[in-house]
């Protein structure tokens, strides 16, 4: 199978991007430098192509009830033009995907799934939708993200990009809240703008029809240039999300992991009810109810490296002996990078509960050598407002 290309593929190639396969798509890994792109997002702004993400429309009178049933969160409580981070679990409580649900109308939602999981989520949605008056439709569109402290100014300066207070009920870029969305305009086209992201910075995500994506991409790049905006690839996206302590499906989350182990128990709403006030038997509820409050066999922690060598996904986490050598294995690294912002290695890892307390001195087996790491709280990085 050949990798799919986003509508912006030729733009990436023309910019000299180093392309890579990700979730079945050809995506830009970096344009020039991972570090420079990462720093641009922290200091000014970066522009990302996220068109590989899976957009799924959910429409119909029972859309809210269906999403309450299919996902672990209380989606029916999400207000109009708001968004919610949630997960779809299997019957055994394992995570099939983490996703964001945007409510764009009274009975209209769209769900953004991870690229590699889009088909799984679509299949599960169709299966779980059988008893509901709802339509589940793939809604492929282009998705651009402008992330960084100057994102708002840059979008305001983007030629042809306009707020649409009439359609959005007075919502502008300035007053658009975190985890909210609004209809806006790009030239003669209606676009949806969300104040969401995966970088730990302020920023926006913009859904635009595929045939207008290049135009919008170029307009944002041109407007952003004086601010120092650069196009940013998946490599920067990964180090940014990791600093911000955000999980990545396939690393921190998978079908053998429950939301509780991942430290994401807050997204599971065992208390949600049907319209009649009955407990709502959403998919995975029984398994998750039995796990809640129980000590999980492993927990997700943040690790800060005391040396210079980064830990990588799959490396063993071990006890640190008195001489600084590797002791018994106590866990596995799920993601790790040298943090560009903090200047030391950071990693996320699943470890056994008895070594999960903040300050616990551990080591990571970095290709045969015990590198010292210490347990720290997540996130590693939090922006100053």
């Amino acid at each position: 199978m050949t990798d799919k290309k986003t509508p912006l593929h030729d733009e990436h190639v023309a910019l000299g991007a180093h392309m890579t396969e990700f979730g079945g798509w050809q995506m830009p890994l970096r344009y020039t430098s991972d570090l420079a792109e990462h720093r641009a997002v922290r200091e000014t702004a970066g522009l990302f192509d996220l068109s590989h993400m899976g957009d799924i429309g959910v429409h119909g009178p029972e859309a809210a009830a269906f999403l309450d049933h299919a996902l672990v969160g209380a989606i029916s409580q999400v207000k109009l033009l708001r968004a919610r981070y949630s997960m779809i679990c299997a019957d055994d409580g394992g995570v099939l995907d983490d996703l964001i649900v945007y409510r764009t109308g009274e009975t209209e939602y769209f769900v953004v799934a991870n690229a590699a999981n889009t088909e799984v989520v679509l299949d599960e949605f169709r299966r779980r939708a059988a008893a509901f008056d709802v339509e589940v439709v793939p809604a492929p569109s282009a998705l651009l993200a402008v992330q960084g402290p100057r994102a708002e100014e840059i979008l305001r300066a983007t030629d042809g990009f306009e707020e649409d207070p009439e359609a959005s009920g007075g919502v502008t870029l300035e007053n658009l809240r975190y985890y909210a969305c609004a209809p806006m305009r790009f030239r003669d086209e209606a676009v949806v703008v969300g104040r969401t992201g995966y970088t730990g910075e302020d920023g926006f995500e913009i859904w635009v029809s595929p045939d207008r994506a290049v135009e919008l991409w170029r307009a944002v790049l041109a407007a952003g240039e004086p601010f120092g905006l650069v196009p940013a690839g998946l490599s920067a996206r990964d180090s940014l999300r990791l600093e911000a302590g955000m999980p990545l499906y396939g690393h921190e989350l998978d079908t053998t992991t429950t939301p509780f182990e991942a430290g994401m128990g807050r997204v599971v709403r065992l208390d949600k009810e049907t319209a009649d006030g009955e407990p709502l038997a959403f998919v995975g509820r029984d398994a998750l109810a039995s796990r809640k409050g129980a000590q999980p066999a492993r927990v997700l922690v943040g690790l800060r490296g005391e040396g210079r060598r980064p830990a990588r996904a799959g490396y063993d986490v071990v006890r640190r002996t008195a001489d600084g050598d590797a002791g018994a294995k106590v866990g596995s690294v799920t993601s790790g990078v040298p943090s560009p912002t903090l200047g030391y290695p950071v990693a996320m890892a699943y470890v056994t509960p008895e070594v999960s307390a903040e300050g616990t001195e551990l080591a990571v087996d970095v290709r045969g050598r015990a590198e010292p790491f210490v347990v720290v709280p997540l996130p590693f990085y939090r922006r100053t407002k």
Partner: protein
Amino acid sequence: MAEYPATLKYTKEHEWVDGESPATVGITPYAAEALGDVVFVELPEVGATIEHGTVVGEIESTKSVSELYAPVSGTVTEVNQAVVDDPELVGSAPFEGGWLFKVEVSATGELLTADEYRAHAGV
């Protein structure tokens, strides 16, 4: 597009070595570009005896780790402390300030000319 000096020899593992005595070793711009931003280098120690074709160090970038192979056999006479302190030099000046170590050569392995290397790497 980087220039590949004809005065240097290259390996299939993307190292370069010059013909001086002692010989200087580094990695090619192609390898540096593929690695991305280099954040850590581990080099053989001065005085170490190395054998061509074997792993003598590591180069670690933000995204990946790759092994450093000895292009020649001999005794290491010097390592580039500047590149240990500032690993980004590997990417910014692979043929100059980003050199890695020097070696008193006792034997060479299979080395490529600049043209052969460019054909091998597709650059």
